[in-house]
């Protein structure tokens, strides 16, 4: 389980962006064209859209909701709760006699949401932090970046477990906890980028005419980090989804009757040899598809923004 964001991919991104900023505005059009030509990435992109639509509207296809228990099915899962179009339980039922399809729909939604929200928080915090450190430079930069170094040596996995134990368990805490371990790399990347943008004419002009530094950071620096941010975020999402599944495995995930793919997989794995393999396979398929999709879209974006690889 790769719990640590891949440094290398982020480094690649930095290089890509260094080149791209030099090339100016046509970059985006070029990148778009390159992305469209990348079959794997395009396929993953449509798959991702399909998954998001499924997670939002998939529930309408079924007569069942995620929480209603069919009491005639519990305990008789292995032969009555099998996936079937006739009963309307497309994916069968879970160990408590609930419709697995409805639960997979919701699990996919929560997992994607955890990934995306976590990534957004990480990216926003990381970008602002890094941009601030990079723009002001000097001693402030030193202090801020040393702090990141210090925080990075803390085994955050454990701190997170302790935090979840401490603050009880809510999806909100989960997002915050996960974001807390994810923004360090982003802040380093953002700082590096800012250092090179800082000396560009438009920033210097803004500075010269006395625009407030905060405004410069928000108006002129952050927008120029957009590309890198998007790529990094896309690559971060699948890692956060994997991470959430681990939290669920520890029994510290979302609360019933809500569920996530990680929680469903963990339940399914417990019943692996109990005659109900579908309880593992369906959530696992959606888990794998979701992560595949994000990986390929992320890779595609990176390649699209990095002309060197072509």
């Amino acid at each position, binding site marked *: 389980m790769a719990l640590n964001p891949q440094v290398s991919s982020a480094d690649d991104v930095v290089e890509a962006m260094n080149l791209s900023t030099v090339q100016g505005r046509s970059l985006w059009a070029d990148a778009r064209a390159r992305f469209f030509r990348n079959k794997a990435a395009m396929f993953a992109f449509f798959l991702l859209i399909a998954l998001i639509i499924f997670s939002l509207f998939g529930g309408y296809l079924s007569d069942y909701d995620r*929480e*209603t*228990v069919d*009491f005639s099915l*519990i*305990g*008789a899962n*292995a032969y009555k709760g099998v996936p079937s179009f006739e009963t309307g339980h497309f994916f069968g039922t879970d*160990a*408590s*006699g*609930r419709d697995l399809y409805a639960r997979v729909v919701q699990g996919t939604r929560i997992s994607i949401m955890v990934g995306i929200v976590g990534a957004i928080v990480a990216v926003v915090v990381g970008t602002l932090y890094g941009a601030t450190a990079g723009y002001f430079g000097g001693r402030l930069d030193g202090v801020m970046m040393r702090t990141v170094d210090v925080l990075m040596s803390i085994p955050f996995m454990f701190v997170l477990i302790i935090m979840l*134990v401490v603050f*009880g*368990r809510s999806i909100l805490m989960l997002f915050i906890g996960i974001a807390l371990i994810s923004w360090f790399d982003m802040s380093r990347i953002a700082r590096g980028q800012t250092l090179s943008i800082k000396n560009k004419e438009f920033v210097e002009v803004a500075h010269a005419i006395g625009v407030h530094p905060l405004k410069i950071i928000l108006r002129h620096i952050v927008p120029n980090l957009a590309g890198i941010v998007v790529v990094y975020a896309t690559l971060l999402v699948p890692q956060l989804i994997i991470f959430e599944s681990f939290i669920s495995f520890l*029994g*510290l995930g979302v*609360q*019933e*009757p809500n569920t996530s793919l990680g929680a469903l997989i963990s*339940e399914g*794995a*417990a*019943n*692996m*040899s*109990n*005659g109900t393999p579908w309880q593992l396979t369906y959530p696992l398929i959606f888990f794998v598809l979701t992560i595949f999709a994000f990986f390929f879209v992320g890779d595609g974006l990176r390649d699209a923004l990095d002309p060197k690889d072509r």
Partner: protein
Amino acid sequence: MTFRATLKATTTAVLLTGATAAYADGHATHPETGEPLASEQTFVYWVGDESPSFDPGLTEDVDGSAHARDLFEGLMNQDADGNLIPGVATGYEVSDDGLVYTFTLRDNAKWSNGDPVVAGDFEYAWKRAASPELASPYSWYMGLMALENVDAVIAGDMDKEELGVTALDDTTLEVRLSQPLPYFPQMVVHTTTFPVHAATVEAHGADWTKPENIVSNGAFKLSEHVPGEKLVRVRNDQYWDNENTILEEVTALVITDENVALTRYLAGELDQTQVPAGQFPRLSEEYPDEAVSVPSACSYYYTINMTDTTNPALLDQNVRQALSMAIDRDVIVESVLAGGQKPAYTFTHWATAGFETPDVPSASMTQEERNAKAAELMAAAGYGEDNPLELNLIYNTNESHKSVAIAISQMWKQTLGVETELANQEWKTFLETRGNQDYEIARAGWCADYNEASTFLDLMDSNSGYNDAAYSNPKVDELLAAARTSDNPQANYTEVEQIIADELPIIPIYHYAEVNMQNDKLGGWPFNNFQQNWYSKDLYKIAE
């Protein structure tokens, strides 16, 4: 490797010395049942986690107690049915006022290093267990035994030498109580009352239970302990009744995941493991001789916060009645758990010794009647479709508690239209929340400390530290107090149960069963021992 070799060498030595040779022989038979015995006499069983301790004075969990019962021997033991049989003591006498017990010890009991087991070892162990220096979490058990001065000793106000236990000579132990306890002899079966070897404890301090230091007096001795992996004990040839011990080696394997434990059982690595929730029906079909379910001394219930921090609706008796009636306990025990548990309408476990389950109205109704009645009561309380009741239910993180909570919340919803918000909490957080009455409805379970109904019902006493419902009814307190000295407490217990069934500070759900997969070649397992107190010295392996 070296370990194995040594083990083989010892086994051979034992074979040559005669007495035990017969049992290691493939053609030997069990002295009582006449069953043929296997040549390899080992027992490997599952434990879910490392025990905090198996030092008799400090033991606090079920698995640790099982280790201690093999390694040490107390005054009295239990037989396969839970009856008292002599242990280190051959018997006891009790004074007319019931306050002084005099135990006579056998003179041939020995520690694993050859020292004789004397009454002074018990005196030392009991005083140690109660002392503030040891600070045992189970020193409260000494208090429960009502030993003279025990509370003052625990509080540190009195020297531990003042505790009501004295070795009159090497084979006579006198115990003085502060109040008569009819079930006192049953209490010395508990591990907290087991002796310890004073010289070893003094010499090694907290490390005395390590394999290289430990000196014990049970039928087995510790040979290997790898925390988190396994604990191995082998026959103790200094044990006074060693010739009747059949097993050579007993191993407890720590396996956290019970599904993996089951896989390893099926692969033949274990002789006994627990059946994960919901898998009993399949396993008993596939392995009818190995899947076993026996009553175990615990009750499962939902406790209701009766203080003013609760949901006001729950203070209405009609609502509590309706919630209890709407739970289809047959579905819970037959479909959700499906492991031989029994539906509960009263608190005390049905199999408790000398206890007769009282009749309560809801027990004899059909579920349809109960549902109808529940809907009626709910309407009377003013809740219905246009005014649905919203509740909060907490349980500690566990797959089986989760399944039960999901099922019950759905029963409430489908029958009564009650919206229940479920929240699982990690164990310690859960205990704190529940203990502080910071909840509305909470899952709870209670296991018997001794085989008598008061071990359950005392929880309903308004002064009980474990009364998480914060329930208080002077009538109940009075009945329970009277039961303690009564010759026939059943009448009081019946009345208490009926009051609880009416007022429902707790909603009983089911009585536990122990559900195991067990090698059908394992003989001597005490299925009828309600408290699941088993002794490896009674076990044996039958030849294929």
